[in-house]
Each structure stands twice: as structure tokens, then as C-alpha cells.
């Protein structure tokens, strides 16, 4: 973990970067521009493109969850696809079996995933590195099997899965169903990112990073490592679970085989490519997770997974800090040059 560079030199934030404005101001301008673009997007692109964009947003939330756990807290999970599945199935089952409105199922999925993640995190407290990876690896492989299990058939629909209908825009809003769904996902994504940002920038975030970098020293400093680690597991699972719930609405369908081991692996590849311990990296990672399998399919029909594997190993060789690490390094260099 020592190679990850998360702390920035304090001077670059205040020093004017470009045109007399500081880095912080530029960041805010950039963020506002991205948000504005995100709001205009559904009116200028086709339905299919909108679906892809929406899926990217959903994956970004899932990757943010995994990144809080792995990037910031240094706990490894090869099984986050399972939490995504729990979130998706919670929404699907509630919509299928009860009259609960779709928007109310999302927080329920979040709460359930928090509980499951917290409970899974308890034994994980004693596990480090490889052991945790092993336990979550087992979880990822067992998930489709549990979802298919015939005694849960009445809930999960077994191998067939569950078909759900997409919600319409609430009365009065002149939006198509897919446009509404996009804004609905956005309405969840923005607060979640703000929550994560608030969580990670202060005392809690520093505690998480301290536990990642040196657990023993962190404990000596008075950080309750056990509490932080299991809470982090819960919060991380909650983010990913909410993403799963949104993803279920988006796909209008859940089935055991869409939550196999490779989904978890794609999440892992996503955070590594996007940049560990970086919030914006979640978006780059999500773009990768959504589009690279398609591109890989074009490149090689028979071995699409191999492309992901090569990218994963290549990233570890060439840019272990991911896209955001690269952006950060370039930004620093630029800042220094302008300041001179």
C-alpha cells in the first residue's frame, strides 16, 4: 500500500494554477461543468446511449463502494458482486412480491446490504490481505449458486430470475421513462458521492487511511481499528448494494448468472484502472467496466476476458495508481511549471 499517493502537498492547493485561479477553484468549475453536462446529456443522446451512460453512473457508485473498502481502508474484496446482487435482488423481490413503490426499495436495499456487509466484515476483522481475498473469493463463487437454490425459488425465481417493469416519470414531468430513470439514478449518485466525500476527507477518512497504511500504528494512536474496519465493510457494501438496486431497475431483470464471479472481478479491475483511493477514479473505472468488455468483444470474440486480464496486469506494471494517479501527477507537473 505504500506506493499509493493520496496526500497532496498543501502548497499546490493554494498556489495559482492557471489564469490566476487556484486548483481548488478550477476543481469546482470542472465539477460544475461535469454536472451541467450530466443534466443536459439525456436530451441530446439516443436511448441506447442513455442506457449506457446510466449504467456507467450505477457502476460508479458500486466502484465507489469498493474503493472505500479497498482503496482507502486496504481491505481486499473479490466478492463485491455479491453485494451488488443482494441489492439488485432486494429491489426486484420487493417490486415483484409487495406493493412498495420503486423509490422506497432503494434505501431498503442499502440498509440490508449494510447489515450483511457489516456481518461479513466481523469475521473479516481478523483476516488480512490474502485471507480476506480468499473468503470474498468464496463468497463471489457461491453467490450464483445460492441465488439458484430451489428452496429460495419462491423469492428469487430460481434460474429464471425476476422480470421487473421500469418506473414511469412521476406525473407532470415531461420525461420518457428512460430519461426519468437516468435522473433518478443521478439523484442517488450525487448525494452518495457527497456522503463519501464528507466521510473520507475528515477524521474518519484519515483513520481509514491510517489503518490501511499501518494497522498497528493506527491502533496505537487510539483508532478503534475493529470498529472502523467492520463499519467500512458495511458502508462499502451499502454503496455497492444501492448501485445493485439501481442496476436492477435499469436492466429490468435480475438472474443468478448476471452476478457471477466475473462481475466481482470487473469491479476490481474498475477500481484498479480508475485509481485506488480516488473518488473521481470511480467514474473512469466505471467507464472502463462498461465499455471495455464491448471493445474487447470486438478485438477478440473468443477471449474477451483476456483483454481485461492484460489491462489489469498492465496497470499494475505501468500505472499502479490508475487513471486518476496519472491525472494527478500531470496536474502537479503542470502546476509546478506555471508557478515557476
Amino acid at each position, binding site marked *: 500500500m505504500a*506506493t499509493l499517493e493520496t496526500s497532496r502537498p498543501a502548497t499546490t492547493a493554494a498556489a495559482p494554477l492557471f489564469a490566476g485561479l487556484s486548483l481548488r477553484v478550477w476543481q469546482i468549475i470542472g465539477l460544475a461543468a461535469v454536472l451541467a453536462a450530466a443534466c443536459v446529456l439525456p436530451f441530446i443522446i439516443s436511448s441506447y446511449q442513455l442506457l449506457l451512460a446510466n449504467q456507467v453512473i450505477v457502476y460508479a457508485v458500486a466502484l465507489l463502494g469498493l474503493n472505500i473498502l479497498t482503496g482507502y481502508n486496504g481491505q481486499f474484496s473479490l466478492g463485491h458482486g455479491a453485494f451488488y446482487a443482494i441489492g439488485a435482488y432486494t429491489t426486484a423481490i420487493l417490486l415483484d412480491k409487495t406493493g412498495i413503490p420503486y423509490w422506497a426499495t432503494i434505501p431498503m436495499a442499502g440498509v440490508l446490504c449494510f447489515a450483511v456487509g457489516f456481518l461479513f466484515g466481523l469475521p473479516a476483522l*481478523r483476516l488480512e490481505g490474502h485471507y480476506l481475498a480468499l473468503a470474498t473469493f468464496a463468497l463471489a*463463487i457461491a453467490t450464483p449458486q445460492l441465488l439458484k437454490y430451489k428452496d429460495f425459488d419462491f423469492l428469487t425465481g430460481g434460474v429464471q430470475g425476476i422480470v421487473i417493469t421500469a418506473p414511469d416519470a412521476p406525473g407532470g414531468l415531461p420525461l420518457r421513462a428512460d430519461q426519468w430513470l437516468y435522473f433518478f439514478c443521478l439523484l442517488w449518485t450525487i448525494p452518495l458521492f457527497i456522503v463519501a466525500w464528507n466521510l473520507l476527507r475528515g477524521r474518519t477518512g484519515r483513520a481509514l487511511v491510517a489503518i490501511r497504511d499501518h494497522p498497528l500504528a493506527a491502533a496505537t494512536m487510539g483508532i478503534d481499528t475493529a470498529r472502523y474496519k467492520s463499519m467500512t465493510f458495511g458502508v462499502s457494501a451499502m454503496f455497492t448494494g444501492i448501485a445493485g438496486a439501481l442496476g436492477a431497475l435499469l436492466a429490468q431483470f435480475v438472474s443468478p448468472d448476471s452476478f457471477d464471479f466475473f462481475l466481482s*472481478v470487473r469491479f476490481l479491475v474498475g477500481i484498479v484502472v480508475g485509481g485506488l483511493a480516488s473518488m473521481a477514479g470511480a467514474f473512469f473505472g466505471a467507464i472502463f467496466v462498461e465499455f471495455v468488455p464491448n471493445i474487447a468483444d470486438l478485438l477478440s470474440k473468443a477471449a474477451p476476458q483476456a483483454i*481485461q486480464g492484460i489491462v*489489469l496486469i498492465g496497470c499494475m506494471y505501468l500505472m499502479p495508481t490508475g487513471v486518476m494517479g496519472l491525472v494527478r501527477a500531470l496536474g502537479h507537473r503542470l502546476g509546478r511549471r506555471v508557478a515557476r
Partner: protein
Amino acid sequence: MQAFLHQVLSGFATGGIYASVALALVMIYQSTHHVNFAQGEMATFSTYMAWKMITIGFPYWAAFLLTLLFAFVLGVAIERIIVRPFYKAPVLSVIAVFIGLLLIINSLSGALFDYTIKPFPSPFPSDAWYGGPYLSPHEVGMIFVTFVVLALTFFFFRFTPLGLAMRAAAENPVSSRLCGVRVGWMLALGWGLAGLIGAVAGMMTAPVIYLDPYMMFSVLLYGFAGALLGGIDNPWGAVLGGFIVGVLQNIAGAYLVGTELMVTVALVIIIGILVIKPSGLFGRPIVTRV
């Protein structure tokens, strides 16, 4: 009672496969403290090579030996070329590299040999004299081969200078290097042997569960469970753990949860061990220096 005995014995036979995989995992873990997630895929790929050789007309045992050679070279090559640069990298990078390897080898198997499920021949004829009321000839053969592998591994590490050097390199790399042991090559050799043992497991298990690119996924999981049960730093514990997991899994499958939840049994075993006794039955507890 007869049915129960049958379940236990055939669990023992599959346990042999898990024991081999667990042994392969421990072999790499001991020297580098890395858990090789790509172990199963390496075995599957080697098994495909054997299948290819058999279908183009090689006799079984010739293909068997050539596959062992191939698996050994594959293991050494992967260690030297891909894993070596990450020898001192953080755990996260190492696991990511192993997962990358898993993806690459898995889709390579699918791309080269397509994804259809293939039957794989057993070297033990189904009407052989050593088959009995409880075990099929292939299961007996499987147990026999497993024991041969275990015995050879034991003799190699216990009675040959090379085995001694490998143990020394795993135990204390710095001192071994000072004594003239080429530690880097010993690690590569360990990978080669692990690949070879995995290939034996793959070729023995393929006639039972059929050959496809995902064949070793669950086997690897049981291997992990076995290795953890016995203690991941103790080869003999891991082997015993593999056998225990095989029997447990068979009994649970027959009497408790049915065949559909077999993998979940492995999950429960893994988490149970990690919670109750993370060092396994015969492993050393992890001690960290402050």
C-alpha cells in the same frame, strides 16, 4: 450404512484431488506468502493440452507425462516473466496480478479449445479388477495417483539436495543466498512443481466432472478450504485438510444440503475456519513483530 460408506470413500477419492490442489497452493505460499488464485486455471489449461494430445492420437500415459512437462514449464515461465517483478509489491498488487492471470488463462483455454464441455478419458478401464462395490476403478486410480504424487513430493523435499535447497530458500532466503542457493530459481522451481501437481489434479478430476474452462473453479475453492483447514503453511496439514474437505463435502452433499449447494459448503468451511482458527489445524499462528 453401505450408502454412507460409499459416500465417505468417494469423498476420500475427490479429497485426493483437493489435497493435491491444496499442496500446490501451499508450495507457492510457503516460499512467497502469495496465494495463487490462478492455480486452478493453470491446471485446466494443462488438462486441455493433455486432451489435445490424446485426441490427436498420443497414448494416454505419454500425453500424461508430456503434460506434466508442459505444466512445469508453464509454472516456471509464469513465475519468471509475470510474477517476479511483483515479488516485493504490496499484497493488493499481487492479488490483482493473480486475478489478471486467472482471466487470461481462463479465456485462453476457452479461445483455443472452445467453451463446449468435453469428456476426458480415464486411464483406468471401467471393468478393471480393482473396482469394488464402493468405489469405481477410476476413483481407486485417483486415490492411487494422489498417493504417488504425495510420496514423490515427500521424497523430493526430504531426500534430495534440490529439495533441501528449496526448503531452505523458503525458510530463510537471505541465509540460503549466502550459502550459495539461487533463491530466485528455487521460487520458480516451486511454481513449476505447483503447476505440475495441479496438472495431475486436473487430469484426474476431468473424467469425473468433464472438461470445460471453468472446471477447476470449484475444485480450487475446495483446495483453498483444505489448505486453510490444515494450515496454509503446513504441506501435510494441507493434504490432510484436502481429504477432510472432500469427505465433508460429499457427506454434506448427500445428507444435508443436496448437490446444488456444494460450493456454499466450501464457503462455510472457509469462513468457519478463518473465524475459529485462522491458522488451521496444524499451522503456525501468525506472529507480527512490532
